[in-house]
């Protein structure tokens, strides 16, 4: 019986370790040093296309919440997607919409523009069926942000 208890405890420890894994960071961030907001948006659009994604739209963070003339110019949202991937993940789990469309938030700073994305692998922590797709999507985000920040 003691052996059974030991085995059970060992199993628990293994399960716990597997469950914990390496924690995913919430955000993926890069900085486009010395760029203006317009330059950063343009570079991001090019990087999106280069990585086989389609540009969807860009807007201010407070778009439609305030009159156009009063919109904040220093924070912009750029949306994009890959329709084949969208089709694939929706078949796996409709909650994949939490990562749709892909989005980068651009924040103007005194030295350039920060490009920030919510890490899809962090979002999918509670959706194991989407784990592999989200890891791949995370790598795409990293490549896109890296290219856009050059």
């Amino acid at each position, binding site marked *: 019986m003691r052996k059974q208890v030991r085995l*059970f405890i060992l199993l628990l420890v293994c399960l716990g370790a597997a469950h914990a894994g390496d924690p995913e960071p919430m955000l993926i961030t890069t900085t486009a040093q010395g760029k203006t907001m317009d330059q950063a948006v343009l570079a991001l659009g090019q990087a999106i296309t280069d990585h086989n994604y389609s540009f969807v739209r860009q807007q201010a963070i407070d778009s*439609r919440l305030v009159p156009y003339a009063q919109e904040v110019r220093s924070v912009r949202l750029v949306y994009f997607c890959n329709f084949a991937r*969208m089709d694939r993940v929706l078949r796996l789990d409709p909650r994949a919409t*939490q990562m749709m469309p892909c989005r980068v938030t651009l924040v103007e700073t005194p030295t350039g523009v920060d490009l920030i*994305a919510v890490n899809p692998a962090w979002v999918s922590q509670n959706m194991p069926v989407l784990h592999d797709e989200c890891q791949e999507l995370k790598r795409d985000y990293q490549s896109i942000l890296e290219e856009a920040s050059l």
Partner: protein
Amino acid sequence: MKRSLCVLGLSVGLVLTVRAEPLSVSKNVDMRQALDDITLAATNHELVLVKMQPIDHALEKRGFENPHIRILFIGSESAVRWAEVAEPKLLNLLPLRLTLFQKDGRMTVISDDFEPWLREFPDAPAHLMIRAWQEELKATLDDFVKQ
């Protein structure tokens, strides 16, 4: 002893498989009526429909199967200003997203899962801010069901 081990094993299994779920409601309406109802419900709670993303049409137009899913983004100026001042990282959660999906004549509306955000920001004011947005969405979804 065996029984205790079974109970313990079952409990651990449950803990490991428990998944935080997003807010979710459903009712028998078509997509058009659902969009009208959710827009009205949002307005009742001082939220604005920022964008409707017709991914059902977008996918169908490109030769993929129609998933009967649309995404809505809703927000408020106060939420944006609050996040700008208190915790700019939360701007990444705005505008708030709702997903509408139709299956067997029934429309289900789900929110994003706020639990990872709440875990990431355990302290005030960010934690309270996320809770407040979650409550606003819950009230909106409850209103949607009553429309």
